[in-house]
């Protein structure tokens, strides 16, 4: 096409683009308030006024609506533009005196006060009538829950008849897009807005519907929460797709089922934590400052919701007294968990130390039953928490946590001194039990792996084969087998990997010859044997004639997978399968010999 000149430089002219788009693409700053990439330009706020010269004459036009025509000359910061901009900012300051964003924007251009007085909406007003909320709701979401009401002085954003909107989907787009945070959703929607708790941040903060699950996610790309996403619920909104500069958002993606033939499987599905609500007397869920240890981890983390500062969830203040409770659920038959979760004594000591390093004047208390610190340097570590970081360890359990005078009173026992203690805590951290992942039994049943009453997966031998299962080729690693800490999980991972390599590295698979064999002549293909086989070793085999026509379908035992239990032999109705080494003939011979 041709070119036009902006601030002394030449740019490609394109009628389909606006001056603002070209400016933004080339790093020229033009302030806007009512512009949004997903919406057609509105020209409401007038902040983007630029001076456009045609020959000798010039006029001020909004850059957001003016096309980038060939041959024009644009000045984005001429004297005329700056004068107009400052006036507009004064008007905005008068309109929305309560908005810090407007004040900041005004200060950037040297406007600190306003000569105008017409504060028709009062000192608390922040709305500048830019219309972004109305247009987003109408054009992008397709809901139209709010609109403009009135004209002139009385113009405002409102719901129909001023009543709560029944169609508002509480998506929060209006509040998100408002440049001055003037929208309050609870004045619009009949339903209270429900933030989506961030799973990774253990519910301490909320997350949007399109989000990167956690900083180390692989692939490190955002995902869309289909259940809550407005596009998938109402079909309209495409804001994320509109703003993405790489055009990477694809709403049509579907779940894929991927099939792979593999020679070995390592199950390393990890653990879950017991719900903190298990002890109602500790007030989890009732008091926001009673949190789980994993939530405390997120508070301590530099990439967490508080940037690594320890703050109470209720009011954001730094807690001076933190009480840690160990054995929440673990070692408690009334909660049907009789095992020890192994990691809590050590991480609680770590928590007390990190807390003290971050809050120098803070005091940590730990209520414990026993201290289990059996690893390398573990005992010394716990002693350091007590001796160097001043953690006070109280051997006893806590009977109740309640609120009094704004503090959380933790009432427990100190069995070593024989006294009962009451501590006024600012924050309480519960070290909840490690449990198996929910639904792991379904995976275990599919794989043919046994599990115990706690749904931890069973190893082949507790001492001699800790990373193998009873099924050949399936190995275990990590907390899915039993509670354990990181060095142990890593060791098990290495062990499982080496077992797999040991399985794969020889040229041939060596195994005991006790395998099932099918007599294909007599097999009727009922596949009862397949139903009883715990390992899925019975396969379907088609017997075809020379021309490829199917004669019959029979069972066939996979000699690599069969473990030689013989359940199939006892089940076969046509006596067509036998176990080599323990054949019917052989056993009858033994019986006859008695």
């Amino acid at each position: 096409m041709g070119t036009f000149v902006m601030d002394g430089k030449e740019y490609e002219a394109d009628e389909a683009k606006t001056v603002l788009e070209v400016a933004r693409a080339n790093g020229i700053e033009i302030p806007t308030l009512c512009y949004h990439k997903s919406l057609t330009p509105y020209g409401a706020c007038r902040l983007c006024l630029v001076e456009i010269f045609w020959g000798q004459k010039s006029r001020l036009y909004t850059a957001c609506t003016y096309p980038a025509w060939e041959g024009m000359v644009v000045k984005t910061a001429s004297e005329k533009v700056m004068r107009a901009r400052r006036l507009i900012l004064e008007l905005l300051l008068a309109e929305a005196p309560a908005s810090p964003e407007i004040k900041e924007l005004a200060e950037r251009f040297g406007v600190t006060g306003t000569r105008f007085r017409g504060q028709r909406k009062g000192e608390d007003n922040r709305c500048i009538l830019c219309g972004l909320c109305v247009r987003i709701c109408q054009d992008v979401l397709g809901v139209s829950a709010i609109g403009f009401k009135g004209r002139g002085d009385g113009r405002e954003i409102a719901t129909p008849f001023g009543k709560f909107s029944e169609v508002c989907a509480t998506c929060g787009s209006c509040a998100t897009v408002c440049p001055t945070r003037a929208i309050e959703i609870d004045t619009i929607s009949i339903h209270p807005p429900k933030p989506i708790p961030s799973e990774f941040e253990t519910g301490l903060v909320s997350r949007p519907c399109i989000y990167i699950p956690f900083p180390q996610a692989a692939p490190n790309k955002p995902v869309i929460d289909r259940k809550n996403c407005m596009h998938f619920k109402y079909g309209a909104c495409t804001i994320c797709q509109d703003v993405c500069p790489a055009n990477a958002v694809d709403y049509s993606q579907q779940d894929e089922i991927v099939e792979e033939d593999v020679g070995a499987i390592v199950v390393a599905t990890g653990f879950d934590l017991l719900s903190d609500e298990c002890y109602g007397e500790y007030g989890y869920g009732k008091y926001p400052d009673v949190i789980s240890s994993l939530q405390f981890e997120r508070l301590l983390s530099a990439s967490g919701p508080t940037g690594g500062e320890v703050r109470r969830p209720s009011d954001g203040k730094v807690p001076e007294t933190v009480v840690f409770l160990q054995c929440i659920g673990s070692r408690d038959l009334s909660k049907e968990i009789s095992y020890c979760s192994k990691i809590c004594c050590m991480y609680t000591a770590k928590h007390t130390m990190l807390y003290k390093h971050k809050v120098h004047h803070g005091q940590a208390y730990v209520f414990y039953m026993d201290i289990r610190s059996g690893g390398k340097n573990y005992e010394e570590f716990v002693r350091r928490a007590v001796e160097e970081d001043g953690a006070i360890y109280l051997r006893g359990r806590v009977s109740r946590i309640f609120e009094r005078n704004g503090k959380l009173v933790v009432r427990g026992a100190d069995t070593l001194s024989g006294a009962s203690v009451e501590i006024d805590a600012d924050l309480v951290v519960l070290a909840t039990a490690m449990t198996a992942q929910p639904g792991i039994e379904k995976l275990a049943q599919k794989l043919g792996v046994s599990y115990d009453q706690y749904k931890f997966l069973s190893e082949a031998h507790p001492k001699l084969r800790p990373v193998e299962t009873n099924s050949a080729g399936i190995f275990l690693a990590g907390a899915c087998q039993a509670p354990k800490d990181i060095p142990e999980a890593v060791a098990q991972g290495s062990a499982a990997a080496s077992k797999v390599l040991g399985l794969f590295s020889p040229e041939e698979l060596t195994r005991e010859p006790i395998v099932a064999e099918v007599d294909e002549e007599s097999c009727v293909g009922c596949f009862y044997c397949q139903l009883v086989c715990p390992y899925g070793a019975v396969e379907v085999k088609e017997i075809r004639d020379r021309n490829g026509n199917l004669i019959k379908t029979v069972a066939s035992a996979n000699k690599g997978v069969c473990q030689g239990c013989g359940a199939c032999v006892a089940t076969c109705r046509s006596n067509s399968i036998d176990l080599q080494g323990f054949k019917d003939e052989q056993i009858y011979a033994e019986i006859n010999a008695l």
Partner: protein
Amino acid sequence: MDSGLTLEGSSEERAKGWEPKITAFVCNWCTYAGADLAGTSRLRYRPQVRVIKLPCTGRIDPLFILKAFERGSDGVLVSGCHPGDCHYTSGNYHARRRFGTFRKLLEFLGIDLRRVQFSWVSAAEGAKWAQVVDEVTQKIWELGPFEGYRRISD
């Protein structure tokens, strides 16, 4: 030799010093290992039980039991891993279910159900194995010789 078995009142055979012949079908991983442990622990128990080793109780065909009776056993003992501990995951469950049904057939055949005994013995339970053998041998001795098959052939 004094078999050490006791009963008040006795049948003809018992009076003659008859000893029961008991066939035990055991699983390799639990009961057989438990019996082995009883041996290495030098435990003393009744010698009348003859052990047939199988990979798993799930391998046991009910016909084995009938064959054992046919070939002169007076009693049969089936012993495997505890429920939940089967080395092959589910073999002992199959065995348990199978014999729930098989008992009806045994009844129909006229075999005294008390002659077929079941137990769970794990690889660590050497003492339990010895105890089970003693108890079963005592029970079968009290029931006397198994006449069923012989009478049919007469």
